Every structure is written in structure tokens, then in C-alpha cells.
């Protein structure tokens, strides 16, 4: 089976976000594989181990993304592809990424494409579905279970805490939700072999794409941090007075009732 994983390099979940010059400051920040993409990588490895085939992890990113791709190879993926857009694209968006990925994937005869449900940075959840649309293949998002029997696929999807079971067929794109699996730690032999596995590096040119073809459809107007949480207010007086005051405040100040 020909399996592809869409992976994004993101800020470590532990990092504190700081702004400088209207942009998010990346200096000294730790980067990781987007945690939802880790589920995707794990699932791809498990599907391959059960059905045979090959897992290729693709990322649209910069030179630094090689580290996360190597980690995916250490986990057990067979090949990696880095589409490096660092020099050509300054402000990409979901359209940019999806278009590039679809262009790469269009002649690859992928049976199964797995991505994360969202990336923890921009959290748009759009890239997966957009790629599927461009490739004109079915897609199911936020999946928590994947069963493959020949070309028939049964997918369980998380719907705000409820489960929805969908039957579909390959080729297919799915995006992984937490609970799909437990991503493995890279093994030592995996780590030692990761450098020897193939990692192809491409640029837009190699995909016959011009910068205009992938120009962002959206524009970022402003980046700002959420307002600091204000100190709470402690009501005083006897219980009846406090309740009255609380109701009053909820009505007039918070305007929620």
C-alpha cells in the first residue's frame, strides 16, 4: 500500500509565545512534529505493518524541517520528502500548502493519505480536506479508528465527543484525532538508521509551480496575544447580598443573563 503522511513542524507545546515586530518570535524556540501529525505517522506505520507497502512523510517547510522528518523516519517511516519553500514564499496560507502538496501527490498513486486533524499553531484543519478536494478523492476528518479490508475502509470519526462510523474506500485521505493510537517513541535502531533513509528535498520549481500559483488567498492583518487574565473580584457581605450582587453583575456588566 502506498501511504503518505502530511506533516507540519510546529512550536513545542511547552513554548511561551512572544511577539516581536508584529511577528511570532521563533528565536530559541523548540520545534516538534505537530502532535496530531504524530498520530498520523503512527497510524501510517501500523497500516503498513499490517498491509505491506511504504510510508512516505511529506512536509512543506524550511531547512529546519529536516529534523522533524528524520524523527518520523526514526519512528519507522520509509521515506521523507521536504518541499522547501523558505526562499520563495514569505506568507503562505492553507491554500499555499494544500496546493503544493496536491501538486506533489497528483501522480503518486497514493492509496492512503493521513494528516493531523489540525496543527497546534494555526489550527485551521484545512490542509487535509483541501488536498483531498484537489486530488478529487474522498476524505474523513478527526478520525479515531481506521479499519482497512482490501479497498474497503471503515472509519470512526469523532463528532464533538460522539462517534460517527463511515464506510468508504481507497484511495482516501483521513485526518487523525487524539485517541487514534499511542504514538511510539523512536527506537534506538530507528534513530541510528534514520540518517540513511532517503530524504528528498524539492523546491517549487521541481513541481513546475510558480510563486503566483500558490500565492496565499488570505492576508494576516495583525497578530496579537490574548488579553491578560484580569484578577478576579471577591464579593463580600452576607450570602443574600452576594447572590444579588452576582446576578446584578452578570446582567449588567457581563451581560450574560
Amino acid at each position, binding site marked *: 500500500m502506498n501511504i503518505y503522511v502530511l506533516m507540519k513542524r510546529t512550536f513545542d507545546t511547552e513554548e511561551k509565545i512572544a511577539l516581536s515586530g508584529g511577528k511570532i518570535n521563533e528565536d530559541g524556540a523548540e520545534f516538534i512534529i505537530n502532535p496530531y501529525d504524530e498520530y498520523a505517522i503512527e497510524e501510517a506505520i501500523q497500516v503498513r505493518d499490517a498491509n505491506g507497502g511504504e510510508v512516505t512523510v511529506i512536509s512543506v517547510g524550511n531547512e529546519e524541517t529536516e*529534523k522533524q522528518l*528524520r*524523527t518520523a523516519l*526514526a519512528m519507522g517511516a520509509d521515506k521523507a520528502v521536504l518541499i522547501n519553500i523558505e526562499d520563495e514564499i514569505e506568507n503562505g496560507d492553507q491554500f499555499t500548502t494544500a496546493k503544493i502538496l496536491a501538486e506533489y501527490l497528483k501522480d503518486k498513486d497514493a492509496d492512503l493519505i493521513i494528516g493531523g486533524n489540525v496543527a497546534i499553531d494555526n489550527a485551521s484543519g484545512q490542509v487535509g480536506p483541501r488536498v483531498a478536494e484537489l486530488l478529487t478523492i474522498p476524505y474523513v476528518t478527526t478520525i479515531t479508528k481506521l479499519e482497512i479490508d482490501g479497498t474497503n475502509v471503515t472509519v470512526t470519526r469523532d463528532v464533538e465527543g460522539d462517534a460517527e462510523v463511515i464506510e468508504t474506500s481507497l484511495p482516501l485521505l483521513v485526518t487523525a484525532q487524539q485517541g487514534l493510537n499511542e504514538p511510539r*517513541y*523512536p*527506537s*534506538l*535502531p*530507528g*534513530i*541510528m538508521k*534514520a*540518517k540513511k533513509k532517503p530524504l528528498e528535498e524539492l523546491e517549487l520549481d521541481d513541481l513546475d509551480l510558480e510563486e503566483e500559483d500558490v500565492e496565499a488567498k488570505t492576508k494576516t492583518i495583525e497578530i496579537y496575544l490574548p488579553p491578560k487574565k484580569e484578577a478576579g473580584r471577591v464579593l463580600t457581605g452576607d450570602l443574600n447580598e452576594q447572590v444579588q450582587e452576582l446576578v446584578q453583575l452578570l446582567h449588567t456588566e457581563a451581560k450574560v443573563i
Partner: protein
Amino acid sequence: MNFDLTSEQEMIKRTLRQFADEVVAPGAIERDRTKRFPVEIFNQLAKMGVMGLPFPEKYGGGGADTISFAIVVEELSRVCGSTGITYSAHISLGGAPLFLFGTEEQKQTFLTPICTGESLGAFGLTEPNAGSDAGGTRTRAHEENGGFIINGNKCFITNASFAKHIAITAVTEVKDDKKEISAIIVPTNAKGFTVIDQYEKMGLNSSNTTELVLEDVRVPAQNLLGKRGEGFRQFLITLDGGRIGIGAMAVGIAQGAYEKALEYAKERKQFGKSISSFQAIQFKLADMAMKIELARNMVYKAAWLKDQGRPFSKEAAMCKLYASEICMEVTSQAVQIHGGYGYMKEYQVERMMRDAKLLEIGEGTSEVQRMVISRFIGC
């Protein structure tokens, strides 16, 4: 000169750091209290292929280098000293002598289960009257009918309850009052072999520290490790490697205590400010960071020399001595920064301080390290 880790070393560090935080750290306080040995952690490390890390793949090892070994020991020790020492002894005392001095057949038979994690590695050197002073060794091995009959006692032996076989040192002959010491591999299930797990320790409570009693234990002659009479030389070489492990452990425990202290100092408010804004606390933390950095550099240098196949005995002694002494200072200061809370188990640093003390003692005391260094500088 190049101070960068290789991409493999970096990935090993990241992976083990994550593993330590997610799997090893959560139960550390509880294990210290109950003295329970974390079998499940070592099963998981075995699954990840880490138990045979520096040994060749043909014995089931990982083919990684000594710097990677130091990285793994540091990351495990950062959250749990007991886990760190178990791993360090497994590799550097259990596996290394078999790898360095064993015959091909011995490696296949005895090193392979250590690499796969089926057996933990252990080394039976210390006796009630002999440690670094190997001349005090009293365990005797008599050759008889193409085999050895061994009698004696060993003490403070790490990992023996979980080892399938142990290399022990024994006197194989006495000539003109000079003891000939050899190392012999003994299966722990041999008749007459008893492992006693009864010590009550100051720290490293969930590591396995045992006494061994050998009463007429018979092993075949082919269990002699390397050449007869080379036991003393072998154990000096083994301890050189072990000292890198202890140095790495010290860096790890110190790093763990420093991280806790820094985090606490930023959160704890007194006199209306975080205590990390007071110079008294800042200077303590700055000293801690500096000492850890220096110790880690020395550990890496000794490991690097070993990986280059160059002499590293002096550097191994230096890294072990320096790292273990700063570890004691750093953990003590970490408790100090925490104040009364630091004295409470819940805040972890008191355990780190107790665990740290062993590092100034095990695999050659600080005094013995100074003796070793003195010899190398020509005293």
C-alpha cells in the same frame, strides 16, 4: 573543535528526555518511598532498543557511542536517580566487561541477553574488605575437574536480583603472597549462589543493591572471562568506563534539581516579588547552571576520548569527581532555594540530594578519584 551533538545524539537526547518526563518521572516519589524496582520502565527501554545501546548490532546492541550512553544516563537520572544508576550499571559494569574481554562465544551467550534486556547487567567486584583495594579480595575460585568452585561474599552489587549471570572477581591462585585475581561469569541460578536484597539505603531506593553469597558454586572453565589473572586489570578498565556513567548520572541529577529550583524560584513570591528576582537566589542559580555546564562538558570529553579509542582514564576520573561533587552542591542548594518545602518529599529535590551522595562514593570514592588523577599528573 566541534561542540555540536550529531543528529543521532540529538535525537537520542530528545527521545529520552520525552520518555523520562512522560514515563519515568511520574512514579519517582512513590518508588523512592516503596523501594519498588521499576521493571516496566526497563521493559519499555528494552523495546526501544536502548538496553544494548553501545554494543554491536550482532549481539543485539544499538551500535551507538559513549556520548549517547552518557546522554541516556543523564536524561534518566534527571528525573529518577534510581533508574539512572540501574541503566548505567547495566551497560558499563554488566555489559562492558563481557564485550571488552569475553570470547566470541561468551559474547553471544552472555552479552546478547543483556543487549535485549532479557537480563540486567551486573558486576561482582566489591567485597566487605575489598573495593578499589582489590588486594583485599577474599572470594576464592579453585580449579577442579575442568571447572571452578567458588566461595565468598560480595557486597553492594547493583542489579543482581534481575541478572541472569554476573561476572565476579575471585582469587584463582596465591603465589608468594601475591593474589592472582580473575573474573569468572557465574549464572545467578547456579547451586550455592544466593542474592540477598536487604539493604536499607540513604537514597537510590528503587535501584537494586544486593549482597551475593557463593557457597561451593561450580561453573565450567569456559566461564573464565578473558585471561586468567587479568581480573584486576579488567576491572580497572571497566571502572574507567563506569566513571563516565557516574559522571553522567551526576550531571542528570544536578540538572533535574536545578530545573526544579529555577521553576520554583520564579513562582515563589516573598516580600511581594518572585524570589528569583533576589540576587541571593540568582547567584545560587547562576552557580548551579555554570557547574552543571562544566561537568557535562567534562563528561562529554571523557566519553569522546573513549569513542576515539584514546586514553581517557584521567578524564573519566576528573569527570566523575567533579560532576559528583557539584551534584552534591547543586542538589543541596536546590533544597535551600525551596526552603521548608524543599525538605518535603513532594518537591523532589530532597530525594535528589539523597541520591546524589552515592555518586561521591560508588565506583571509587572522591578520594580514590584524586589518587587516580594524582598518578596521571606525575605525583
